[in-house]
């Protein structure tokens, strides 16, 4: 198990390295030149200082050398300066990462148990009333656009009822925890609604299949009650295929909550990466995208470990 | 008479598992298997799961490449291009037929691959469907419209259409109901009489083998334990494994069984076959020599046609 984990971490580092090369190449293929952007924004720059800036940014240096310079600095923790925030990339990305992780963890903590509960309930009597209601909810969750749901929730809970703030981040510099939670409620609700629908569908399908399997019949023939059969026998087996779905969803959530972040004014990873690419902020975009890769790699590794923990037939040797 | 099929020292090993930093294990599917099949002969391969009998069928049909050894077809088989020498009939008549193809097309497929024109293909498909006891209209229908026994007839028709000299049939009866089994068994017999075809008949069912086979190979853990004519094998089994197999088969009319006669233990994994005689872990006759030396396949005492690989053969 330990050996397997170490091998997998080694592989992840390898993938990450390859990704640095690919991303570096891709970003350099992007149209637009950061120095041009800077010059446009600041006409008072002289030609001499423009040349100096160009040199600083490595113009005229061949791509492989630039890559080498960048990667050697990056592994030492120097990610360079962000050209749109005029601050070190690490300082910019740190809080954004924090915001995104808060949103993601809260969304997961809410949606996984909810999906297990709703999916299992729906699977008990496929085609029954409960199943139809839950399926309706799941389809609504899948098909309601994020921005629309966000706006509706803001109108209802922030504007009309005034119960919750409309923004995702408190204005205070050092807000107390309860205030932060209050601000997170609406964006987390929207993200949960977005995340839970497909999960419910998967749990339901997986549970229906598991409940019709031979070993569930065996469990019935032993005289176990339905709750015992579902909790002790069916659920764990049904969970196994869910792990992949969760891991994939997690990666998507990391950089894919752009709309929600924008509407609720949360400066998270989705918005950060989007802005960085839009305004040709090389350094920020590179590290942001690499972080997204890293999260996907980590969630896949966790998924594999979870597989081995859930399913004794898989041995991670 | 020249042999139709000559198999010499056939070995088949598969690497299993392994990875970037690990050596794969070796699965010994078949070890030093040699035999011949004569024209018009039915040779049965008998064995339990893990004996390698299906692997052997695949190797002879060309679906698997041997690790070493030879599979040679006699001169009778070097005919026209469309005459594939070997055709296969599988165990499961439900998954062996493409559900989206019409039966006529399924049956005629070997001809299509050989480039036979469409019209001739259809005619020959209808003829061969008739020979397996299905009417000509069947050609226009889909596999799901047929019962298990009828589907196995379709699979047999597909095997027959290219006029092969040898049919490898892998447990063709075991998915069928008892009353349907005998119908298909009679069909196989009829084909054999009419076409002087050879069968390599893979089965675990000794009753069926006794009925159909001319000669029998008993396979255990990828090795031939015994090879003999049907009469000899069933009347005077030489190898202790063959004897145990015969005792294990339930028979009607014996009344309730007397416990304690069954073979102990189970077939070991082909990933780590026992040293010496592969059967020694379960053999009632096993001695020290059996744990060390691999017994040679040689004639049983006084029966030159009956070969048995046992240090203490009868």
């Amino acid at each position, binding site marked *: 198990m330990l050996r397997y984990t170490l091998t997998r971490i080694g592989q992840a580092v390898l993938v990450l390295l390859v990704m640095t090369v690919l991303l570096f190449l891709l970003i350099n293929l992007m149209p637009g030149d950061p120095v041009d952007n800077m010059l446009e924004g600041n006409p008072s720059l002289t030609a001499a200082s423009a040349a100096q800036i160009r040199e600083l940014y490595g113009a005229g240096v061949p791509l492989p050398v630039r890559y080498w310079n960048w990667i050697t600095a990056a592994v030492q923790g120097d990610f360079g300066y962000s050209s749109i925030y005029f601050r070190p990339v690490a300082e910019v990305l740190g809080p954004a990462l924090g915001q995104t992780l808060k949103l993601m963890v809260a969304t997961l903590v809410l949606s996984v148990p909810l999906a297990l509960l709703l999916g299992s309930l729906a699977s008990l009597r496929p085609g029954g009333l409960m199943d139809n209601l839950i399926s309706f909810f799941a389809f609504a969750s899948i098909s309601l656009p994020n921005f629309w749901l966000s706006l509706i929730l803001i109108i209802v809970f922030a504007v009309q009822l005034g119960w919750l703030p409309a923004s995702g981040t408190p204005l205070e510099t050092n807000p107390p925890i309860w205030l932060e939670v209050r601000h997170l409620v609406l964006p987390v609700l929207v993200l949960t609604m977005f995340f839970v629908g497909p999960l419910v569908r998967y749990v339901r399908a997986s549970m229906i299949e598991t409940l019709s*399997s*031979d*070993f569930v*019949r*065996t*469990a*019935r*023939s*032993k*005289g*176990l*009650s339905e709750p015992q059969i579902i909790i*002790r*026998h069916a659920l*764990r*087996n049904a969970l196994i295929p869910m792990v992949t779905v969760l891991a994939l969803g997690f990666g998507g959530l990391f950089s894919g909550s752009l709309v929600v972040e924008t509407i609720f004014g949360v400066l998270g990873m989705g918005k950060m990466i989007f802005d960085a690419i839009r305004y040709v902020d090389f350094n920020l975009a590179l590290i942001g995208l690499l972080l997204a890769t890293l999260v996907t790699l980590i969630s896949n590794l966790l998924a594999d470990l979870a597989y081995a923990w*859930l*399913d*004794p*037939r898989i041995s991670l040797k | 008479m020249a042999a139709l099929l000559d198999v010499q020292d056939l070995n088949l090993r598969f690497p299993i598992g392994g990875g970037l930093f690990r050596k794969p294990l070796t699965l010994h599917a078949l070890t030093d298997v040699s035999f011949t099949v004569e024209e018009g002969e039915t040779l049965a391969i008998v064995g*339990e*799961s893990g004996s390698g009998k299906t692997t052997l069928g695949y190797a002879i049909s060309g679906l698997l490449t041997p690790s070493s050894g030879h599979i040679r077809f006699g001169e009778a088989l070097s005919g026209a291009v469309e005459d594939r020498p070997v055709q296969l009939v599988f165990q499961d008549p439900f998954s062996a037929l493409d559900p989206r193809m019409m039966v006529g097309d399924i049956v005629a497929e070997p001809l299509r691959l050989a480039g036979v024109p469409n019209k001739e293909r259809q005619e020959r498909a209808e003829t061969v469907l008739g020979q397996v006891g299905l009417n000509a209209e069947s050609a226009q229908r889909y596999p799901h419209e047929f*019962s298990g*026994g*009828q589907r196995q007839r379709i699979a047999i028709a597909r095997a027959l259409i290219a006029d092969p000299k040898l049919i490898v049939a892998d447990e063709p009866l075991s998915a069928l*109901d*008892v*009353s*349907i*089994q*005998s*119908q298909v068994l*009679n069909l196989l*017999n*009829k084909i054999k009489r009419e076409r002087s075809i050879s069968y390599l008949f893979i089965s*675990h*069912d*000794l*009753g069926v083998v*006794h*009925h*159909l086979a001319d000669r029998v190979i008993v396979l255990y853990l990828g090795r031939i334990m015994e090879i003999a004519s*049907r009469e000899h094998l069933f009347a005077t089994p030489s190898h202790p494994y063959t004897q145990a*197999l015969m005792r*294990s*088969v*339930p*028979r*009607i*009319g014996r*009344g*309730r*069984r007397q*416990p*304690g*006669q*069954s*073979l102990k233990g*189970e*077939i070991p994994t082909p990933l780590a076959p026992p040293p010496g005689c592969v059967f020694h872990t379960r053999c009632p006759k096993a001695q020290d020599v059996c744990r060390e030396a691999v017994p040679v396949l040689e004639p049983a005492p006084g029966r030159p046609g009956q070969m048995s690989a046992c240090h203490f053969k009868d």
Partner: protein
Amino acid sequence: MMIAAPASVAEIQDAHSQASGAATPLLRVQDLTIAFPAAVGREAEVVSSISYEIGAGEALGVVGESGCGKTMTSLALMGLLPPAAQVDGAIWFDGRDLTKLSARAWRSHRGRDAAMVFQEPMTAMNPVMRVGDQIAEVLVRHEGMSKRDGFSRAVQLLASVHIPSPERRAQDYPHQLSGGMRQRAMIAMALACRPKLLVADEPTTALDVTVQAQILDLMLELQEQHGTAIQFISHNLAVVSEIAHRIMVMYSGRIVEYASVGDLFANPLHPYTQGLIKTLPEMGQPGSDLYTIPGTIGGKRPPGCRFSNRCPLADAGCRQAEPALREVAPRHYVACHKVN
């Protein structure tokens, strides 16, 4: 011997047991009918008004081909029929009619009074639960044992079905056991609470012949030790003949013949039973054509006798009225117009 009015087997046997003074049997199935909401191309009734009984410690073999209703009959004894099934008639077990049981009473019947062993040992156990825990679960459920005591009892049970190194095997997961060992573990699980009836549905069909022989030995041994009654279902006449005292042959949802093993093979009366025996390859001369029962299984049932469209003896009368199961010799029952 002729019986004027066709009586149900239960009535006949009632008369028998009264005459011989025998106690009531452990299981008595009376006019059991199992039907499903009609679907296209499928008969609604999978089992039609069958009656039979199993005495304490008796082994009954049930033989038939696919669609004969043998599996549905077994599931009915365990209350494991699909929810859509409509059950008619009575299943008297140990003085109670099982068809009248509440869901709760069914649960205490299953695993304690009656237990079941299934065909596929590969899929019948929970793949993510240790073998010992799966056996212990029955004991925790019915005997009120603690998990710990249940587990140590499970080890003893694994030893009693001759599984080598039972302590280690109890810790194993099902995939670490061979097919034969899994079936032994299933038998250990089924017998954990010493049920009065063991229902075994094709328990050796998925196994190799040498392992099948071992499992049959084991079932005989345990039956003699504990006096468990067995309903043993199989498509294989020979397998059933080695374990059963009596055999019931089913065809298309009906019992066609019901007799002791000796009587059935010495004197098979129903054309279907005769056909089944004659089609066995070991019955024919090697190389000769075997006897075949014409036609196929399934499809629409003919009017009258359900076997009439495949029967060599059938005449117009057979196609009109369904024959009742009657006793034509002592304890030998057959449902055929052509048998006197």
